[in-house]
């Protein structure tokens, strides 16, 4: 049942095959069993069980809130959650308990979703491995698959099993691992330069980066304001579409969200691709691309073509400049967004009180890791 899609579980809940509390407890116990993955920083057991209780009441009355009512979800620890510690995997915010919910979190809660916990990440979402947070790295669940274990046993000898694991990619590695390990049905990540898509690929799950402006960033602790978006991680595309439908839309608290109302949508079932035209940017065929990835890519393109779709070459001529632009924007905005972490209003504050400047310097040295210094 933990492997079912959102629609399937939702139907089961409606039909009473399982109660939200039972579902919640199954997930909680699996979280405990998979603790070695280090996917969760905070497990909000009490909160989740209480939410499950409420959801159960609603199902009994036949008043479920929607497709997500009673469904366990997880949230990356750079989203503000009211009353639940939000650390961004940094010493700077260790112990910080926000007084408000991020808009996307609120939307999920308003749909009756159960918040299992806050997931691990690279510190402040800066990274692509989920290895750089203060709570340690997240381990890819696939490291513990039979397939991988067999392969490793053949190759290595005497290596400690403990150190033999794969990364999840990042920075939303915790969310990807949580979904991949079946501890929840959907998870929120964030994506600035691939931080949802990258770990999704590593962990074998679906990672969706919505277009900038479609989903509110209010409450998402920012890295690069002009590029960040909340990301969605699920085990199938249909589930991602359901979650997007709930999260998308204008938020008056975020002036960069689109003004036009977002129409509800349902993914068409694509049985006939003959009218589909798929473009492959030629600039993406970089020399550094690994042969394994290249062959998988070809395989996918061939699949579409064999089913009748048109697959053509297109050009995105500024591709080579993208990484340079990204770095300029990223470094400027990150420096700017980190300026508020001075220990004065919230979060970590050092013991030095000689002068304001000395306090700022020590607080930031203690609070940030090397990437930020």
């Amino acid at each position: 049942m933990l492997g079912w899609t959102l629609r399937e579980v939702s139907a089961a809940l409606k039909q009473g095959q399982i109660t939200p509390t039972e579902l919640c407890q199954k997930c909680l116990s699996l979280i405990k069993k998979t603790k070695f993955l280090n996917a969760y920083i905070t497990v909000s057991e009490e909160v989740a069980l209480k939410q499950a209780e409420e959801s159960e009441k609603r199902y009994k009355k036949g008043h479920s809130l929607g497709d997500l009512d009673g469904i366990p979800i997880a949230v990356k620890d750079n989203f503000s959650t009211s009353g639940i510690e939000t650390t961004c995997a940094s010493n700077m915010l260790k112990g910080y308990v926000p007084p408000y919910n991020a808009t996307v979190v609120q939307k999920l809660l308003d749909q009756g979703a159960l918040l299992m916990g806050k997931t691990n990440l690279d510190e402040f979402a800066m990274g692509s491995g989920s290895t750089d947070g203060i709570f340690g790295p997240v381990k890819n669940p696939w490291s513990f698959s039979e397939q991988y274990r067999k392969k490793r046993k053949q190759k290595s000898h005497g290596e400690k099993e403990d150190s033999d694991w794969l990364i999840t990619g990042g920075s939303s590695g915790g969310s990807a691992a949580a979904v991949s390990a079946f501890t929840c049905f959907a998870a929120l990540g964030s994506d600035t330069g691939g931080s949802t898509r990258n770990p999704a690929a590593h962990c074998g799950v679906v990672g969706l980066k919505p277009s900038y402006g479609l989903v509110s960033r209010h409450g998402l602790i920012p890295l690069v304001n002009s590029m960040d978006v909340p990301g969605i991680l699920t085990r199938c595309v249909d589930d991602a579409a359901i979650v997007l439908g709930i999260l998308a839309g204008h938020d008056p608290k975020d002036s960069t969200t689109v003004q036009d109302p977002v129409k509800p949508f349902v993914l068409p079932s694509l049985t006939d691709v003959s009218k589909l035209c798929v473009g492959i940017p030629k600039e993406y065929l970089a020399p550094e691309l690994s042969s394994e990835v290249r062959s998988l890519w070809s395989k996918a393109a061939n699949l579409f073509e064999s089913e009748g779709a048109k697959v053509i070459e297109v050009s995105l001529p500024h591709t080579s400049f993208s990484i340079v632009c990204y770095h300029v924007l990223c470094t400027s905005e990150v420096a700017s967004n980190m300026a508020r972490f001075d220990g004065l209003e919230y979060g970590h504050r050092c013991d030095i009180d000689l002068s304001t400047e000395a306090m700022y310097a020590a607080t930031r040295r203690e609070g940030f890791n090397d990437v930020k210094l």
Partner: protein
Amino acid sequence: MAAPVLRWLCPGRRWAFARTGGCSYHRRGVPTASTSSGKRGQSSVAQQSLITAQEPRKGDREWAAVVGLEIHAQISSNSKLFSGSQVHFAAPPNSLVSFFDASLPGTLPVLNRRCVEAAVMTGLALDCRINKKSLFDRKHYFYADLPAGYQITQQRLPIAVDGSLAYSVCVGKKRGQAVARTVRVRQIQLEQDSGKSLHDDLRSQTLVDLNRAEGQLRVDANISVHHPGEPLGVRTEVKNLNSARFLARAIDYEIQRQISELENGGEILNETRSFDYKLGCTMPMRDKEGKQDYRFMPEPNLPPLLLYDSASLPAGADPQQVINIDQIREQLPELPSVTREKLVQRYGMLPEHSFALLNEVGLLEFFQNVMKETRAEPKKVTSWVLNTFLGFLKQQNLAVSESPVTPSALAELLNLVERKAISSSAAKQVFEELWRSEGKTPAQIVAEKQLELMRDDEALEQLCRATMEAHPQVVMDLKKGNPRAINKLIGLVRKATLGRADPTAIKDVLERQLSG
């Protein structure tokens, strides 16, 4: 925090400084503009100086000072510029702080419509060009009362540019010598205000209140000096001046300081200075890094601010969502320059009087109410309001609204003078009494103090004759041609009438009696 502020930048007005003391200059024989007649030498007090030098200086060339003002004006609105928090005067510390104001991570700015309207109104009132598209930027620096580590401002493309303000300045020593001037307004921008810092030296700590910064109006002055014809000098910035009087003193001091420094072979540093009110001098502020690098960057959380006029308004636009410049222009109250012009046209008032009437809150209204109820000449009313009435107010530090004398009372008093029921000097006595004891009408006071003008011509004739007889010496002086003797006689007669006779009437009678 995130309280709204309008910033005006007024670029430099130049004042020419002339030299006083001709000796050294004469020796070197260097001409200045003031001696265009070709005359050199002793007389070197320039006619063109507007601010005379306070002491003679060495050096031999004219100096010009350039002053630019940065004016921070807090916008009167119910909530702050980017956060929904309210704005209340004198609220308890940190009681009006939203999550955004405290810079809690994940919070975003949302622009306040009323503040934008206020900025547009200010831009229109100052004759600026309103930019239909303006942008927001981040200005970074670390300070305890700036929780985010940056201030949101409009550096690249502000909401209004290229305006001007006309004003009047007294020149020369004589009253009534005023010239009209204009100052350019380079730009008007919206920006966040900081919080308030309170330094507790006793406990070596600083307390921060994030409600709002102190001071509804704060001015920073940028000052430099140079020789006319040469490039502009290095400028210093004098910060946080809160009153017009101190602003003037600080600028004067700084100009002098820079001139002295340069004439003594020193150099001016591009630094920030503060003004010490007690010592009356500017001092460098602690600024070890030299020039601040604010690392300006576009504010990514705020899209460009778009304004419309009636021509460019998109069809079917929701009036709640868009701002129409033309609509705001229509709603502007009458601007002071227009009001002043009307006063000059309607009452034949001197321009500087129109300035004076508008410079005091409620004074214009008071004047107009008096005018409604009196037949006295506008010039007389103006004089009474600006001299006597305003004088009494200032002496006791009262606002017009706190005046014990109502417009009706003053109007009545002026009517009495106009009817020649009392003399104008008697009127002044009545006014004093009106001020002191509320509730009495002018007529009552006149009766009480017996200040009615003497109407009895017969009695006046007799008094004049008697006075002349009693003071033959004065009469002799008068006949000899001493012009002041007549005044003495008039004074004596007035005294005898206990101030109740009109001096003009006394003069007539005396002259008639003397000639006859």
